[in-house]
C-alpha cells in the first residue's frame, strides 16, 4: 500500500467511526422504534461489556483455555472480589492487574 493510499484508507476509517457511531441520529426524521425493542435495548450496554470481557478471560487464540493456571482467571477473581467488597472500578483494575503481574512475572502463568 502506497503512502497516499494508506492515508486515504485511514481517513475512510475515520469517516466510518463517525458514521457508525451516529448512524441512528444522523437523520432528524421521525423514527419510531417499537416499544419492546426500546425496552430490550436497555440490556445492550451490559451485553456489550460481557461480550468483550468473557472471551478476553477464558479464550486464547480463539480456543477455550484448558488450564486453571492462567493468570487472567485469578486477576478477574481478585478484581471482582474487590468490586463486590468496595464497589470501586479503580480498585478492580489495580487489584486485578497486581494479581496478573505477580502470577505472570512470578510464576509464568
Amino acid at each position, binding site marked *: *500500500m502506497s503512502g497516499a*493510499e*494508506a*492515508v*486515504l*484508507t*485511514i*481517513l*475512510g*476509517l*475515520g469517516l*466510518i*467511526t*463517525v*458514521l*457508525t*457511531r*451516529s*448512524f*441512528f*441520529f*444522523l437523520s*432528524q426524521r421521525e423514527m419510531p422504534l417499537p416499544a419492546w425493542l426500546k*425496552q*430490550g*435495548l*436497555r*440490556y*445492550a*450496554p*451490559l*451485553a*456489550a*461489556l*460481557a*461480550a*468483550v*470481557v*468473557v*472471551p*478476553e478471560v477464558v*479464550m486464547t487464540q*480463539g480456543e*477455550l483455555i484448558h488450564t486453571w493456571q492462567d*493468570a*487472567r482467571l485469578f*486477576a*478477574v477473581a481478585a478484581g*471482582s472480589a474487590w*468490586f463486590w467488597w468496595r464497589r470501586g*472500578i*479503580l480498585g*478492580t*483494575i*489495580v487489584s*486485578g*492487574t497486581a494479581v*496478573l*503481574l505477580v502470577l*505472570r512475572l512470578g510464576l509464568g502463568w
Partner: protein
Amino acid sequence: MKLGSEGGTLPPWRHPAFRTGAREMMSIAPGISAWGLVTGVAMVKALGVPLSLLMSMVVFAGSAQLAALPLIAAGAPVWVVWATALCVNLRFVIFSAQWRPYFAHLPLVQRLRLGYFTADLNYVLFMKRFREPRPSAEQLPYFWGGVSLNWCAWQIPSVAGILLGERVPTHWGLGFAGTLALLGLMNTLLSDRATWVAAAVAGCAAVAAYALPLRLNIVVAIAAAVAMGLLMEQLPRQRRSA
C-alpha cells in the same frame, strides 16, 4: 463553538455536570490508558510513526484499528479494510439508536462531532446516568466531561506507545487492565436477576460465536442478551396471568 447552547448559558466545561462526567470516567481511565498504550505499540509496528499518529487521531476506535492493522500491513484492498471496520463497529450502530432521543434535536454538525466521541464506555456511563430517554440541560456537559477525559486517557498513552514502540513491555499483559476496567463497569450494571442472566447469556454467546469473523460475535451476543432480557421480563407476567 456552540457546545454550550443546550446546557444553559454556561459553556459545557463550566457546568457542574462536566466535572461529574469527568469524575465518573476517571476511575475507568487507567484501563483505557493501558489499552491505548498497547494499541499504540501495535500500530507503530504495522504502520510506522506518521501514519500511526494519523490513525490514532482520526479513527479513535481501538477495536476497529486493531482489526484494520494487519489488513493494511498486508496490502489488502481498501474496501476490505473499510468493510472490516464497518463490521467491527456494528455495535455502535445499535448504541446510536439509544443515543437518538438525547441527541436528535441538535444541529447536524454537532451530532457528527458527538458521533466521533461516543466511545463504548461513554455510552455505558451515559445510559446508566440518564435512564429517561429525553434531553435535559445537564446531559451535554456530562457527555463532554466524560468524552474529554476518555479522549485524553486514550490518545496520550496511544501516542506514547507509538513513539516508544518495542520499548513498552506488552508481554506483561498490560492490555488486560482494559478488560478489568470493563469488568468493573459491567459489575456496576449487575443488579437484579434479569441483568445477571443477560450478562451470562451475552458472555456465553460471545464465546460460542467467537469463530465468526470481524468480531460479529459481539453483535450476536448483544442480540441474544436483549432477547433473553425481554423474555425474563415477560415470564413473571405470564405466570401471573395464567
